[in-house]
């Protein structure tokens, strides 16, 4: 990564710029980068965004637990939801459940339970992953925690919009149901992203470059956003300092 910012800061800024004023946005647990993106957007251009940041009691506007949050989400309350993806494939299927044969998993992951529902009901699902590699971007996920596309007749209010990684932004095109390169982060070549991706990538020519963070965005991230994030992601803030 080039310039005077970290990969995490670039990802947070790239995510924040996609968030719109007035949106209701939820971030799952163990997601400090999207959480910082939400706080950045709220501090900068989206003051009326409503944030639900799991893991932060201050940003959980329900007293009925996750049950109430799920009910709200299934009714169509979420404009945006964030999740990670242990594996993501070309068709926008993602896996947060198990690695290996589901009957005898090599790794069992904790993030699956919510996404089999939330990925259907959030109007815009954004996945983030700090490791753009062939073990993440696989030809076929070991387990479909949520599918990129579903046939008609299935209750689906939205779905995958994009995947933000430490190298690039991949956009999901619902027609033809495929992930494509949206932009490359500064200093990253298409060859490198292709080498780190386990399926052939389609890219526009010329490929856009993800805009670098502006000084104002970095100042917010390193000041008030970090301060608020520290209350519920102390370890992450310590590592970033």
């Amino acid at each position, binding site marked *: 990564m080039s310039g005077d910012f970290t990969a995490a800061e670039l990802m947070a800024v790239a995510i924040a710029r996609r968030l719109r004023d007035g949106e209701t946005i939820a971030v799952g647990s163990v997601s400090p980068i999207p959480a910082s993106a939400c706080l950045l957007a709220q501090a900068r251009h989206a003051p009326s965004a409503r944030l639900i940041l*799991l893991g932060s*009691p201050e940003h*959980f506007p*329900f*007293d*009925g*637990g*996750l*049950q109430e949050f799920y009910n709200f989400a*299934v009714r169509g309350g979420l404009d945006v939801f964030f999740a990670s993806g242990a594996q993501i494939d070309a068709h926008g299927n993602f896996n947060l*459940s198990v690695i290996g044969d*589901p*009957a005898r998993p090599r790794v069992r992951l904790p993030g*699956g339970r919510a996404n*089999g*529902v*939330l*990925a*259907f*009901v959030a109007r815009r699902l954004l996945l983030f992953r700090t490791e753009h590699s062939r073990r993440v971007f696989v030809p076929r996920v070991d*387990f*479909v*925690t*949520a*599918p990129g596309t*579903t*046939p008609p*007749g*299935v*209750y689906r209010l939205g779905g995958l919009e994009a995947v933000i990684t430490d190298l690039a932004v991949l956009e999901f095109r619902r027609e033809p149901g495929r992930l494509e390169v949206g932009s490359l982060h500064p200093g990253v070549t298409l060859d490198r992203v292709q080498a780190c991706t386990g399926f052939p990538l389609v890219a526009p020519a010329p490929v856009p470059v993800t805009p670098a963070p502006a000084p104002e965005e970095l100042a917010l991230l390193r000041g008030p956003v970090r301060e608020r994030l520290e209350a519920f992601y*102390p*370890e992450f803030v310590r590592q970033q300092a």
Partner: protein
Amino acid sequence: MNVPFAPVRGLLHTDYMKVRPDFRTIANPYDPAEEIALVPAIAPDVAVFHGFRGDRFGNVVTSGTIDAKLIAQASRVTLASVEQVVDGDLAREPHTGALVSGMHVTAVVHAPRGAHPTACAGHYADDAAHIREYVRAAAADETFRAYLERYVLGTRDHRAYLALVAEARVAAAGRA
């Protein structure tokens, strides 16, 4: 509610429908054009949760971010540990957080720091060093058994457990 199953919007065309043969797909009886998933009810024998305050009627005030109200209503036996036991009736007092009615609660246990090593909102943060120790120990059967022996089976009660945790922290600080 004691209903045998619930319809769920979502889950269809995920692999959960493959690995869980008890998850079913039906046509919505009220709108046959829609496919909908059914999942069986879970009826736990015992639910355990931690709260801020409890009273002698079994009422417990706890964090609204956890599903204490849900599990208390689903389980046959519900046990709550609390930071503080109070006089009076919590169901008749204003509160912040969630009130779990004593109607659902079998027993309340006074256990300050009872959420350790996880956090109790407004009371204490999580004990990251202890959680790291647990994660390391849980990686293999032998080290996990040693953890259980040291912290769970080998301690007389919760107070002894907390004393041991404090001792381990002082020892670790000495090594650092």
